[in-house]
């Protein structure tokens, strides 16, 4: 009788077995296949669970009858959305966001980009916000998975986003803007997806399969069927956005750029057909009739492509242009010029709150102060953290110096110690000035920070930097450029008011030296001319001995 209990079990097994056999016979699915598909599914579910808490529903203050979407990008509550989503909030710079935790948080609108249809907001609460990590939109491929999240048709009653899944249908797309000369809400070099994007998805994030933020959804192609998705949506690429973020965080209204010349297609060649004489491009050596081979590191094969690629840069961004003239290739470097911010048209007045409210922002000063503090905080972090930096007393550099001619190599052996540093002053020699600013940052950032203001974003040694201007004394000023993501100090520039003398150091190749991270290449420019480059084999940074 002891065997009895096992009988039902065997029966159950055999039943299950026959059930399985029937299914296996009925279809061509193998259990291994299903496991593979379930694994793929589970991976996606996990990514969604990880990133969706950072997806926001964006509303006007106290009014949930309309709205769009957004995404938080740091724990402090900074978030991205479309300009057209917050345009109606410009007057008082106030709005609300709803997060998947079911709560509404007040937010303020910081910097905006009417041309590129982007805006930044900052939500407030005690404690950190969940946020999305940014990816790299330059490495995307057509066919890559693309997850869109947001609040289409305001369906998110509890502020949990709608998640849709598709693929990247096209890259480097150009969607003309609206308004005067089509300068507002232009989508240049944008990402096209077949992921469903509907009214209300505007400003919401597009993620890749790993849950990295690759773009901000904002437009769809529609036609006779009206305002519903037909499989053709567009997102502003995150690499474009990254170049503007430092300025938006500081409350600045950003401008896009013009090249100072225009191009036309001539057969398969792209030719400069107009150029502003005396403009930066002209001064950098570009001439009428030049064939443009590459612009800002991308090969150019049509005028459309040129326009599209130009649109992703802020005004004043440094670019490199390769042209061909008389069979000879030449490379020019210059800074792009301002594209005026579009004035709202009659048809857009409602969108812009009825008036031109851009650039006059009560929020700017406070946001700017916060942005400066953040840059300093990140710098200290990049150096090695608060404690390490405070105890830092000396740095020893060992390396070689190259002159601008590239022939003269001299050994460099520099020892710096905290005690020997004087505060920055106009009459200092360049090396001492740089040393002074660097050590002032280390010693007491707050006092310096109080005199700084974020004025721009820039590309310094191939990285996006936030540029601060500081006015320690009358007539003189200096600029500091910090890596916007890592906090590394990338540039120190001193400008003397009376003489116009300019001293600039640029740093690159950051390496850990003991507890702190310091540059291993330091270039000195005097009045915009490269004077020397120092390369350090080793940097010895020390604390108390």
């Amino acid at each position, binding site marked *: 009788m002891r065997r009895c209990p096992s009988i039902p079990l065997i029966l159950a097994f055999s039943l299950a077995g026959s059930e399985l056999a029937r299914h296996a016979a009925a*279809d061509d699915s193998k259990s291994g296949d299903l496991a*593979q598909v379930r694994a793929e599914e589970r991976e996606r579910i996990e990514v969604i669970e990880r990133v969706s808490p950072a997806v926001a529903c964006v509303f006007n203050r106290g009014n949930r009858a309309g709205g769009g979407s957004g995404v938080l990008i740091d724990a402090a509550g900074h978030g991205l959305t479309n300009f057209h989503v917050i345009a109606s909030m410009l007057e008082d710079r106030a709005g609300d966001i709803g997060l998947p935790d079911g709560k509404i948080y007040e937010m303020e609108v910081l910097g905006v980009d009417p041309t590129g249809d982007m805006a930044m907001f900052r939500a407030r609460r005690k404690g950190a916000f969940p946020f999305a990590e940014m990816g790299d939109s330059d490495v995307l491929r057509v066919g890559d998975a693309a997850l869109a999240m947001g609040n289409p048709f305001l369906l998110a*009653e509890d502020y949990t986003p*709608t998640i849709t*899944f598709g693929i990247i249908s096209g890259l480097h797309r150009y969607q003309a803007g609206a308004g005067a000369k089509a300068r507002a809400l232009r989508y240049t070099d944008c990402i096209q997806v077949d992921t469903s994007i509907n009214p209300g998805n505007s400003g919401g994030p597009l993620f890749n399969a790993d849950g990295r933020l690759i773009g901000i959804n904002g437009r769809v192609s529609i036609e006779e069927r009206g305002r519903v998705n037909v499989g053709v949506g567009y997102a502003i690429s995150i690499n474009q956005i990254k170049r503007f973020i430092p300025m938006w965080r500081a409350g600045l209204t950003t401008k896009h750029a013009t090249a100072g010349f225009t191009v036309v297609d001539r057969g398969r060649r792209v030719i400069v057909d107009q150029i502003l004489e005396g403009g930066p491009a002209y001064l950098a050596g570009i001439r009428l009739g030049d064939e443009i081979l590459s612009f800002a590191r991308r090969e150019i094969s049509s005028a459309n492509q040129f326009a599209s690629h130009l649109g992703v840069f802020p005004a004043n961004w440094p670019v490199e242009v390769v042209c061909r003239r008389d069979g000879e290739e030449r490379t020019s470097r210059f800074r792009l010029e301002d594209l005026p911010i579009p004035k709202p048209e009659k048809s857009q007045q409602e969108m812009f709150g009825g008036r031109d409210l851009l650039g006059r922002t009560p929020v700017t000063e406070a946001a700017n102060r916060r942005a400066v503090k953040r840059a300093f905080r990140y710098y200290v972090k990049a150096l090695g953290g608060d404690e390490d930096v405070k105890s830092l007393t000396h740095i020893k550099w060992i390396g070689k110096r190259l002159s601008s001619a590239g022939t003269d190599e001299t050994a460099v052996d520099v020892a710096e110690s905290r005690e020997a540093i004087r505060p920055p002053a106009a009459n200092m020699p360049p090396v001492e000035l740089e040393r002074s600013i660097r050590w002032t940052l280390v010693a007491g950032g707050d006092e310096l920070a109080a005199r700084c203001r974020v004025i721009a974003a820039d590309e310094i040694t191939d990285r996006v930097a936030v540029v601060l201007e500081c006015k320690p004394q009358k007539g003189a000023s200096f600029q500091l450029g910090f890596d916007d993501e890592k906090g590394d100090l990338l540039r120190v520039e001193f400008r003397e008011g009376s003489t116009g003398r300019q001293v600039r150091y640029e740093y690159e190749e950051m390496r850990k030296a003991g507890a702190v991270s310091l540059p291993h290449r330091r270039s000195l420019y005097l009045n915009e001319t490269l004077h020397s480059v120092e390369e350090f084999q080793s940097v010895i940074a020390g604390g108390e001995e």
Partner: protein
Amino acid sequence: MANAIFHLMWVSACAVSGTEAPDIERARAAAIRAAVARASASIVKIETIGGAQPIVEAGPRGRAEEGFRLGEGPTTGLVYSADGYIITSSFNFARDPSIITVTLQDGRRLIAKLLGRDYIRRLALLKVDAADLPEPQWLATDDLRVGQYAIACGRALGGDQASMSLGIISAVGRRNGNAIQTDAKVSPINYGGPLLDIEGAVIGILVPMAGSGGALAGAEWYDSGIGFAIYRDKIGLVFERLAAGESIEQGRIGIVLAEDEPSLFPFLDKLLPAAKGVKIKEVAPDSPASRADLRAGDKIVALDGQPTGDIAEMQRRLSDRAAGEQIRLSVKRRWRTIEVSLTLVRPAEIGKPSDLEAPASAPTTTRNAESPPESEPPATTQPDGN
């Protein structure tokens, strides 16, 4: 030796250019087919005869919405129980047909009786004379995760097999907790059919939802990647009533709402946050509201004890309350707060003007968020929700 090197190079080249993808692609396709095959016998074809094209109600902008018209059928349903109950969508009977037939996968064609319709969840229950219908397997609601695969199945386009569209679960607990949202392509091709998981278990019944346009509401969003399926337990809640021949309609109390006007003294609003509410613009004569002595100018500050947010939220919360159900309103009139209980009635039972409250999906305000001009406007949501 040279051969061996060549061979190795070829293999490594394959490893670089060929991805593992085709394997997962094939596995996924097989899984989809197996899932549909598993549920297929329970997915039925519904055909109707007679009736008329429903008149499309004027939308919030005063015109009939993008003239969506019913097709000629057939449509889709799902076996609910072996004894002949078929669950489907009320959308499929918007013509009020005189004859309905159900065709099973084995070719049997049966006369069906339309027992009841739930206009809130957009469901309909049919009964055929059979005792051996293949019941589908349902997925437990707790097992549902956002991001998992979802397959929408229908029989509207004929063919021997059910049609299938692959998507994911986009959200759960939508439309007052009635619906699962999916980005699989949901349309008249599969309204009334099942949404399946990757192993063929039924997640919910596909229906058009939200949107505007009365009996056809939501159909204008077909294939947009915004699709809905009703939870099984929500079907279970109304099954008995539908089986008893009841029609579940959205209840009305007979008021027109207006967004609270911006205060002249905004600082007062901050001091008195409770003053926020939704104002009654108009009360229909001979309605639950008029009988409860609600008046134009009253401000509704709470519904069933929960503070009201804005019109959209209020309308949403009212949208799945059926005629016959009771609600409790807290109403502020000048300095007094009045508590009233009302029994919702069918629209037809309200005096003139009848169809006062717009459904939740069609808020009547048009404040802010005007879309930029252009044929391809950015995807911002307009308050009319379409």
